[in-house]
């Protein structure tokens, strides 16, 4: 105001300034509006979303895997166990000088080079508060030494965990199977079944056998710990704990002692034995030899051992009882005979002359009998006892393939038995329809002839043979073989029996008396027939049938001579049997690969199995 020259300017300047301040204030208000708008969007509109994210940030669910159910045999013998194994861990943040601690530690327990290398590899990759494994599978002595010196080693800890263990090793390994680490495929399957949540924290899963089939019973329900963690994942506190539900224990119908006896009875033969209780279908013994040690698979089998198993020509990993398909051979003769009686193509006492061979009209081919000179005249009873081939060639032709095949299907041939194991093979029950379907060829008469003695296309698993034998013992009532007998809640000693699965429809025989003829003929096999040697000093009644399955076809003008053949081309010895005849309790099928003959090898094995069964029963009764 003093400097007159700028009076006007000052007014203009004030106007200008006021103007600019006004615009600036508007700008500031808009800016604050934008910020508030953004905050409104974050804190009101999307609040729920961010609240969830914040919660997810903060709260972590830590899965607590359930303890796996145990597996017992029918008498309470433990077949699959969870054993504590101890590992030594080191928590870096609790240790002042790691190298010095390791040096002192080695005065107490031995640390291998690989233990140390693994530890040093994990150390930089782990968080300071996470325990790093230093040594696995500590011995009890090591655990004790560490416990005594515990005060000297802050930050060192012994952690116990449960590992699956099969105390009997190879015994019944084809039945029990094993668990292994969950693989990528397992995970995919679990996801497809919507079960992956239940497997959080679980490291192992059933891979084979009962462990696999009854995974759902054995696994249990996962538990959770809701923990609050900070940004680096350290647990601040436990908010909530839902305890896991341990898996339920399984009680198998298998009798471990009988199983052991059966496995021993097979000696060094490759083969299979299946023993079923015909009353219930309970599987008492289920042998496939050679076998393997399931303990090796639990924590990952090493490549050398696995390759050794894989490349072994005896194929120890192959479940012969379940998946081995063998020609049932002469063991089918009682069944064929029954079919013939049922279809009235022959009378029970009607006899057929056996000259040692059989020919079809207008065909040169001679179907030979195993007995060179022939058996002469025999009826059904004698034909089964002597295992006459010609009788059954003739009877099969009289039956025709259609009736023969249809009748055999009632015994379960050509169809899965329905046992509670995965991977069962069905074998082959040949029929016109089967041949057209699989080979697109018509059926020839000659094929009917050899079907009559269980050769040709006919294949059956040892399990199917045992099932058919049980059906025979039951006089037509079919049972589904099964291994699961009872389930018990963990800690409870009261197993709850599993309801028996309904059996198939009974074999339709027009007269129940026909069973007597078939069973009588099998009794005669033991008494006076091909297996009469196993009938010596028998303290119970037994019915059976031998079978010899050709591994290599013998030409028309050739003879089978075991001494000139490699063992792997020797005939398979087969035997089916059940006992006691009056009230059958056990039905057995034995396949001894390359055993030569059913009567020489397979029948004595079956006898040993049934003897053991009877002895055990007597001991229990006492």
């Amino acid at each position, binding site marked *: 105001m003093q400097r007159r020259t700028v009076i006007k*300017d000052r007014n203009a300047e004030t106007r200008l*300034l006021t103007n600019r301040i006004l615009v600036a*204030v508007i700008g500031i208000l808009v800016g*604050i509006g934008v910020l508030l708008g953004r905050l409104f969007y*974050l*804190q009101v509109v999307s609040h729920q979303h961010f609240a969830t994210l914040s919660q997810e940030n903060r709260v972590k669910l830590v899965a607590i895997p359930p303890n796996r159910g145990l597996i017992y045999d029918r008498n309470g013998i433990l077949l699959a166990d969870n054993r504590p194994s101890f590992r030594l861990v080191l928590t870096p943040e609790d240790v002042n000088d790691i190298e010095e601690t390791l040096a002192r530690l080695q005065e107490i327990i031995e640390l291998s080079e690989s233990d140390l290398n693994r530890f040093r590899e994990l150390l930089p990759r782990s968080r300071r508060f996470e325990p790093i494994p230093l040594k696995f599978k500590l011995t009890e002595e090591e655990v004790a030494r560490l416990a005594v010196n515990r005060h000297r080693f802050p930050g060192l800890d012994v952690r116990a965990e449960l590992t699956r263990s099969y105390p009997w090793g190879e015994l019944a390994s084809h039945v029990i199977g094993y668990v292994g680490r969950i693989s990528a495929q397992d995970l995919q399957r679990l996801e497809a079944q919507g079960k992956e949540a239940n497997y959080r924290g679980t490291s192992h899963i059933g891979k084979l056998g009962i462990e696999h089939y009854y995974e759902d019973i054995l696994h249990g329900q996962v538990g959770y710990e809701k923990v609050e963690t900070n940004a680096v994942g350290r647990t601040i506190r436990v908010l909530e704990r839902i305890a896991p539900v341990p898996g339920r224990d399984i009680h198998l119908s298998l009798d471990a002692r009988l199983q052991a006896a059966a496995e021993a009875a097979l000696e060094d033969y490759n083969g299979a034995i299946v023993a079923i209780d015909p009353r219930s279908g309970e599987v008492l013994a289920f042998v496939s030899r050679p076998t393997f040690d399931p303990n090796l698979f639990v924590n990952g089998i090493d490549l050398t051992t696995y390759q050794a198993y894989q490349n072994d020509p005896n194929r120890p990993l192959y479940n012969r009882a379940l998946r081995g398909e063998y020609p049932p051979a002469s063991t089918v003769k009682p069944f064929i005979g029954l079919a013939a009686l049922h279809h009235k193509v022959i009378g029970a006492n009607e006899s057929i002359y056996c000259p040692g061979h059989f020919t079809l009209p207008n065909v040169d081919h001679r179907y030979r009998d195993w007995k060179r000179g022939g058996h002469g005249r025999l009826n059904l009873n004698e034909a089964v006892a002597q295992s006459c081939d010609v009788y059954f060639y003739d009877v099969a032709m009289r039956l025709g393939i259609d009736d023969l095949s249809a009748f055999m299907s009632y015994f379960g041939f050509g169809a899965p038995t329905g046992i509670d194991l995965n991977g069962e093979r069905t074998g082959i029950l040949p029929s016109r329809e089967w041949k057209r379907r699989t080979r697109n060829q018509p059926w020839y008469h000659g094929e009917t002839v050899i079907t009559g003695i269980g050769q040709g296309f006919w294949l059956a698993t040892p399990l199917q043979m045992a099932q058919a034998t049980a059906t025979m013992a039951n006089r037509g009532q079919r049972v589904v073989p099964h291994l699961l007998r009872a389930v018990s809640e963990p800690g409870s000693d009261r197993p709850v029996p599993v309801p028996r699965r309904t059996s198939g429809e009974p074999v339709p025989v027009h007269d129940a008396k026909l069973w007597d003829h078939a069973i009588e003929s099998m009794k005669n096999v033991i008494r006076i027939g091909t297996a009469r040697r196993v009938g010596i000093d028998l303290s119970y009644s037994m019915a059976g049938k031998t079978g010899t399955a050709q591994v290599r076809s013998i030409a028309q003008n050739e003879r089978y001579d075991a001494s000139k053949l490699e063992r792997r081309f020797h005939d398979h010895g087969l035997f089916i049997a059940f006992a006691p005849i009056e009230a059958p309790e056990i039905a057995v099928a034995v396949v001894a690969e390359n055993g030569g003959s059913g009567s020489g090898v397979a029948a004595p094995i079956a006898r040993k199995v049934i003897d053991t069964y009877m002895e055990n029963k007597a001991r229990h009764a006492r």
Partner: protein
Amino acid sequence: MLGDPAAGSPLRQSWLQRYLRLDGVLLSALLLLTGVGLGILYSAFDGHLLEVRKQLIRFVIAFGAMLVMAQISPATLRRWSPWVYGATLIMLLAVMAFGHIGKGAQRWLDLGFVRFQPSELMKLALPMTVAWFLSRHELPPRFPQVLIALVLILVPTALIAEQPDLGTAILVATAGFFVLYMAGLRWRLILGTIVALIPIGVLMWHFGMHDYQRRRVLTLFDPHSDPLGSGYHIIQSTIALGSGGVYGKGYLRGTQSHLDFLPERHTDFIFAVLGEEFGLMGAALLLLLYFLIIARGLYIGLCAQDTYSRLLACSLSLTFFVYVFVNIGMVSGLLPVVGVPLPLVSYGGTSMVTLLAAFGMLMSIHTHRKLWPS
């Protein structure tokens, strides 16, 4: 609310104004803000008093700086302006030559007894100088004056951006531009400058920016593209804010901050702590407090008696708003992470001293008014 515009008479000045040269309204608002800031900091430090006490000491020092600045009359300040500017420019060059390398950027100058950031001083020196230069001529400035003012702005800006400290460079430049704006730079020129900035921005993107700066801009548009890297800050701070809701999780109960999910929660991202614990209400109240301070600053500018004071007061107030806007915009995911602290709340000393020194200038401008300006 903002005081009486006619309050020019020395007779009506309170003792605070007359003897300490302080403005009561501004001082109260600043004290309230620092109180709030210390409170949030206490939470951000999980209740560790030691750090809060350190910050309190810084505040005492900064308020001391404010008191000192308030004693210097605007006329003296004006006379010193070009010399302060020149000295600061030399120091910036010195930083380039032998500055301490901290955090991958040359920002610090070691003066033996104290480490010093010349770029902070430039935040004051630049608006002072531009105001000094423009106030020598008639307003609005003519083209040659604008050009010279632009050179005055861009030289230190380029030096600071080269350190590299993009956040401070932008704030320094902004302070200079606000002086030009208040001086009445024509709207046409302002719009023209904005249009001209686009190609400059593109060129900067390709040649002038460090990788980490480019990444920060990119992650702004899609924080989830780098959730564990530079996007992590934004993701966690938006979670903190969003989960706070309207009323917040309660004081000291923010899970994002107390469980370490929120990075840099004591410094640049402290607003997220407030937003998480006090919700939208707390954030809005804080914004209101900032608005009061800025409004008081602009009012001081309006009441100022000479051109230099007017330009300086308004420019400083507007720059203060830019601080607030850039920081909250950054924390809430609107702007890229450029490393601007929340004024007077974030932990740390240098920017606090600069800020309160600026408020000291504002108070000086307000309290040195005369009934009859000479």
